[in-house]
């Protein structure tokens, strides 16, 4: 099956091997990961900061941070791409907040916060890699969300706002915002679960 996270042609190094090579000081490791993920990291950063030059600064920071912290990476906490995208999102949101003279996002300085904090003992990178089809499903589910749910989700994801900040922005009660975000997240998760169930009989 075609893997979404492997957009490039046959590359001998897996993500984990590339990261290990990076730790050893082998430049091909960093180059491999850059070629594999710079596009999605840049696209996400650009969506958040909206300015191309600034998005490129974010990309540079993301790979610099990956490079510095490669030794600390633990694949039970998520795939390399997931880790990079978490760093990218955190950095990009911090850029926007700095521009608006707001304090740094609640993620704090450590990008491993939130979702990354729960290691999965059974996890390996393969099982965590999203397929093109799954991404398509989430994209479609996102488009099908009621507008107010999508708006709340986007303010959380792209603007890095907390639930009470979103409530303030939308002039809605906090409880309403909480249930909208939860409903949106569950719908998106359902879109992935459906895919999983469809695949399982073929995979096993």
């Amino acid at each position, binding site marked *: 099956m075609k893997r979404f996270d492997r957009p490039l042609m046959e590359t001998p190094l897996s993500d984990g091997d590339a990261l290990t090579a990076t730790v050893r*000081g082998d430049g091909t490791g960093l180059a491999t990961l850059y070629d594999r993920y710079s596009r999605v990291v840049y696209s996400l950063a650009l969506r958040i900061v909206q300015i191309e030059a600034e998005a490129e600064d974010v*990309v540079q920071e993301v790979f610099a941070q990956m490079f510095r912290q490669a030794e600390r990476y633990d694949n039970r906490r998520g795939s390399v791409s997931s880790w990079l995208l978490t760093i990218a999102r955190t950095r990009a949101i911090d850029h926007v907040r700095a521009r608006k*003279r707001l304090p740094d996002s609640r993620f704090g300085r450590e990008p491993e916060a*939130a979702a990354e904090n729960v290691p999965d003992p059974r996890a390996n990178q393969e099982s965590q890699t*999203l397929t093109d089809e799954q991404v398509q499903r989430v994209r479609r589910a996102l488009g099908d969300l009621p507008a107010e749910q999508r708006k709340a*989700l986007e303010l959380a994801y792209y603007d890095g706002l907390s*639930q009470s900040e979103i409530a303030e922005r939308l002039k809605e009660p906090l409880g309403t915002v*909480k249930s909208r975000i939860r409903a949106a997240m*569950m719908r998106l998760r359902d879109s992935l679960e459906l895919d999983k169930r469809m695949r399982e009989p073929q995979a096993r």
Partner: protein
Amino acid sequence: MSHEELRELASAYALGALDPGDRQRFEAHLAGCAECQAEVRSFRPVVDALAHTVDSRQPSAQLRARVLSVGSTRPAKGSRAATVLPWFLATAAAIALAALTPYTVQLRNRTRELAAAVRDLSARLADTDRQLVAARVEVSLLAAPDVRRVDLRGQSAAPQAGARAYYSRSRGVYFVASDLPHPMIAVVRSSSPTCRPACRIPMCSRSRSNPLAG
């Protein structure tokens, strides 16, 4: 908060959208609750997928070299002191960058204004260039070795008008007219396809003095 209430925070936690108070409460519970851990994990692919749903754009080719230059400076694993320095420098750079960002926006606006001013000046410069070229053609024609002067008298339609033409077979025609009644169209033709006529006609001049007279 009950387990059920806390479990409802899992999706917002995975999204990083909990307020600090909720987050602390949830994390304290999460450490000892396998069910909530599984719940958080189940939302992780959703958060990952969100990153992939944005419009895909390619960064510039120069960025690759910029990023990879970091990779050539990494010391071997274990040399602690050496790894601290780049980390420190990168952090300092990030802090400087954050401080510079509002200034950067201001600079970008200023750059846009200056670019508009440059475009305006370039247009005026091009105009001046054209005038200069025309003047050079005039001078070159007047200095041509084969230049011939032709004095022209006003005809019945404009008896007071006067004109003088300078003609060079190689360089064209230079034509000056004065006291033409307004509006009158002067047509200057060159019989040679290679020589373009240079022409200056002070259409509304009342003066009889001809700049080229004498």
